[in-house]
């Protein structure tokens, strides 16, 4: 049980037991360009589905990062704060943003699977 799901705001999320890992998609990094700044939510804070949970900035502009589901932030990836270029290099794996203790697993049902997201990403960028 570790299917990756995707949001319309270009985040990916992967659930492992009670804990979900969230990051931004490769497609998002391609839209943003070189990422030079990342801000993550505070450990221990609670985030609400579709609420702001961080910021990424490219040389061009700042963009909010949203959380696809609600939960308590149990871990953050300090390495991407220290070296934001890692997000461009490996967005959908080692450059994850934060981990959540999941509040309501059914929120996952509102998200897209890979096939649907790829289609969505293609359509929204054309």
């Amino acid at each position: 049980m570790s299917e990756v799901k995707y949001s319309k705001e270009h985040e990916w999320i992967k659930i492992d037991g009670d804990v979900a890992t969230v990051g931004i998609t490769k497609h998002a990094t391609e839209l943003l360009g070189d990422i030079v700044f990342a801000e993550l939510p505070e450990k221990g804070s609670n985030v609400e589905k579709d609420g702001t949970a961080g910021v990424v900035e490219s040389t061009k502009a700042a963009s909010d990062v949203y959380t696809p589901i609600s939960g308590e932030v149990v871990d953050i990836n300090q390495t991407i704060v220290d070296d934001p270029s890692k997000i461009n290099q490996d967005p959908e794996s080692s450059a994850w943003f934060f981990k959540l203790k999941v509040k309501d697993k059914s929120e996952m049902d509102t998200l897209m699977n890979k096939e649907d997201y790829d289609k969505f990403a293609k359509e929204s960028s054309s």
Partner: protein
Amino acid sequence: MEIKKTPLYKLHQNNNAKFVEFAGYQMPIQYAEGIVEEHKFTRTHSGIFDVSHMGQLFIYGDNNLTEDLEKIFPLDLKNLKINHSKYSFLMNDDAGIYDDLIVTKLEKGFLIILNAACKENDFKILSKLLNDKYEMLLDEKRSLIAIQGPKSVKILNNIIYGVANLNFMSGNWFSFHDQKVYITRSGYTGEDGFEVSILNELSEKFTKELIDKGAKLIGLGARDTLRLEAGLCLYGHELDKDKTPVEANLKWAISKDRVSKGNFIGFNKISKQLNDGVSKIRVGIKPEGRIIAREKTKIFNQSDSHIGEITSGTFGPSVNGPVAMGYVENEFSKKDTKIFLEVRGKKYPANICGLPFYKKNYVKGVNK
């Protein structure tokens, strides 16, 4: 109004450019490698910038023209040598800046390089100020290609022999495939480099030769990070009608001799500000952490009073950290003054710093 394209549009497309509309033109913001790589390549090798959207204004005339232009620009144009260039401003009566520009003296007149967004208005203002006495040509038949970075001199000299002998802020006519090109040693990146005014029909051929010799196309995105690291102003951001050259900390560009004699537009205000000081002034700003403070970010002092605003801010790839410029109240403009920048509702510490952020590498004395 239809969006204009430069003669290099196809070449940009073929090089996977991402485009953005800028001053009515479809311009490349970046290519496949991205802003950071393009920026670093320019600092270490040689970058090609299509700046054909900028205005190339030729004004033809004799000594009367020189005298009339001195009533407009705070420059000592009488003593400017032929083929030498000066940075200056077109101002209103209150010394507010309509445009910043480069004036080059030619044998039969002057060439003035204008910002794309301002060029039509500049033309109107200048025609009126000169009473239509002189032949003026805002030349749309020529492209402007900048080549910037330490390897540029070798690359360009291979294609057009003799450019290596030019000094910074001087130029000359050269030839490319039997057509005249005007080349100045100048630029907007803080690096050694050249700007090449060339007929539209030849601009793609010329640019392809530069690429064959190892230079790479660079977009407006990296042009902005490069100029910001070099502490150079961008019209519409650091400069506009509500700011004067003295406030913009550009008094070095105003001829001392001309200030002592007056008789140019904006003189009263400039003279007053030079004597009495200014209430706000442009400074360099270095945030303490990695936070990026963009244009319009509010600046506060240590007692939490609002003292100014950021006019440009980004991540500087060569500085490897955030950099910004802005205007603050004069009393807080001293180097190392601690300030705070309000970003997304939070205040982050920063310091006033000297400019440039990145040391300029201009070549000044090759041909003395």
